[in-house]
């Protein structure tokens, strides 16, 4: 039971991160490898807000997330929009996102250095609760809560709002959407905002959960994120959530049974198995669709 809780908590973070990844892929058909850098930058932003500006964690959280969203919009404008229309746009987009990720990482290293940072004492709640047969820390509960809340908000956005409908339209066919009067440019910018906000949120929550923020934290999560979206199906939001929680639970149980050196190995095993046996994942389709 304890492991299930741990798995759910880890899975929440993976799911949030993967949702951002898969949203951009669904809309633009591009793998945004700078996503993990935004993940990392947002964690640092929150750290700076709490540590240097002494804001309360719950206040810093939304500020950092919005900042991450804005970085996403900037990223789209600078690194992806100029490539739209090129015949090799998915590969050049990938390379462009790699360049952006490198730049972000360099900036973080320049600003904060290569060390590992902790949130100041007292800014992270550390009470423990008893739930069923498991001990859940307050942090874990809050993280699960925030993640689920964000996922629900996202679902509402995509299903019930005009923007959501436009996003789904552009994901299916940018040309058709444009003909129908959708402002494709703004929709794409909005998608990047949402995607980076999700990724950034995952980053802050990750940093809070493990009380460890460093310039290379995005790297470890990047591959897990890839495994999740491949498992869930590229472009499928429900798939990302399902696979995120799935991988979280699988990882926790693997570490419990086989030891921590296998922690990362699980993601690769999942990744390769899915790519070799069923590349479109659990819920993906040949043509990418959203929600």
């Amino acid at each position: 039971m304890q492991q299930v809780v741990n798995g759910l908590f880890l899975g929440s973070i993976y799911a949030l991160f993967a949702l951002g990844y898969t949203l951009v892929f669904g809309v633009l058909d591009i793998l945004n490898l700078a996503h993990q850098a935004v993940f990392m930058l947002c964690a640092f932003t929150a750290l700076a807000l709490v540590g240097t500006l002494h804001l309360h964690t719950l206040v810093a959280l939304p500020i950092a997330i919005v900042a991450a969203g804005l970085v996403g919009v900037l990223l789209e404008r600078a690194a992806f929009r100029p490539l739209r229309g090129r015949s090799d746009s998915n590969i050049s987009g990938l390379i462009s996102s790699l360049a952006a990720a490198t730049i972000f990482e360099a900036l973080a290293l320049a600003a904060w250095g290569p060390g590992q940072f902790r949130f100041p004492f007292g800014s992270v709640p550390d009470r423990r609760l008893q739930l069923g047969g498991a001990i859940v820390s307050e942090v874990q509960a809050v993280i699960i809560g925030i993640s689920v809340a964000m996922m629900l908000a996202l679902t509402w956005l995509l299903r019930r709002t005009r923007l959501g409908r436009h996003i789904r339209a552009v994901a299916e066919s940018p040309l058709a959407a444009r003909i129908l009067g959708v402002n494709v440019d703004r929709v794409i910018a909005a998608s990047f905002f949402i995607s980076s906000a999700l990724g950034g949120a995952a980053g802050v929550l990750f940093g809070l959960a493990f009380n460890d923020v460093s310039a290379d934290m995005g790297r470890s999560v990047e591959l897990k994120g890839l495994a999740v979206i491949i498992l869930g199906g590229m472009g499928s939001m429900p798939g990302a959530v399902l696979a995120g929680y799935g991988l979280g639970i699988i990882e926790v149980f693997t570490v419990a049974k086989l030891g921590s050196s296998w922690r990362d190995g699980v993601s690769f095993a999942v990744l390769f198995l899915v790519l070799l046996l069923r590349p479109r994942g659990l819920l993906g389709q040949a043509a990418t669709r959203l929600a």
Partner: protein
Amino acid sequence: MEALLEWWLTYQSAVAFIGVNALLALSVYATLSCGQLSLANAGFMAIGGYAGALLTLHTELPFALVLAAAAALPAVVAVPLGLPVLRLRGVFLAIATIGWGEVVRLALVNWDYTNGALGLVAIPQRAGPGVIYLCLALALFVFWRLRGSRAGQALEAIREDEPAARTLGIDTTAYKLAMFAFGAGLAGLAGGLEAHLTFMVAPSGYGFSRVVDMLVQAVVGGIAHFGGPVLGAAFLTLLPEALREVSRVTGMEPGPLRLLANGLVLLLVILFLPNGIVSLPQRVREWREERRAARALVG
């Protein structure tokens, strides 16, 4: 003559590293030239580096054989890996190969025989600019003869439009696999050379950032011609030297500065000069043509 010797002593290691990086950039170019974005070569480089180090430390094999093994082992491993993986298209192939690189790195971190994360040290320095550039020359020779040949044209066709190439009788799987293995061999060779140049091998030297470096050098140099990656390697290996002044002025640490420069250069190239530095003369020519044509219209 004195000055030349002095210059050589100062820049010898830079020259050697340019050679190694050129081989690595060429290894990425090998698969890019037929349209496959494979990010697996850090893993293959690790295999070659460790194989070379182990052979030198535990056997009496002559260096030439050590290098041959460092190149051959990854190439052999690449074949069963490539068969399933090359069936994946574009983005999926990139992801799978990133995964492979990490698998190798993790395996090495957990391998006690080679001291896990610490790696192997005290490898005698058997590699110098001479050997390195000999290997580079051989690699460039192969690429040179490949260009314009039936096989070379088949590779270009695969890059341009793989299904159409298949309908013309080109066994695209075989060709892609061959270049995948060739790239793996080049990366392994580079790994073996570097191990004997820097005295050590460790998993941390073969992470994802390594393969990004290789990709950056290949793309920045230009992937339309095999000279591009060499140019890119030279440019980006020498960049930190040029940046020393910038580092002093801005107060930014050289490490992050180099990373920032790499990222900026790659971004600028992919946005404005997608065919790399190598294509600069051609682009300038085309730009001049456009200006002339526009002026003719107006005038």
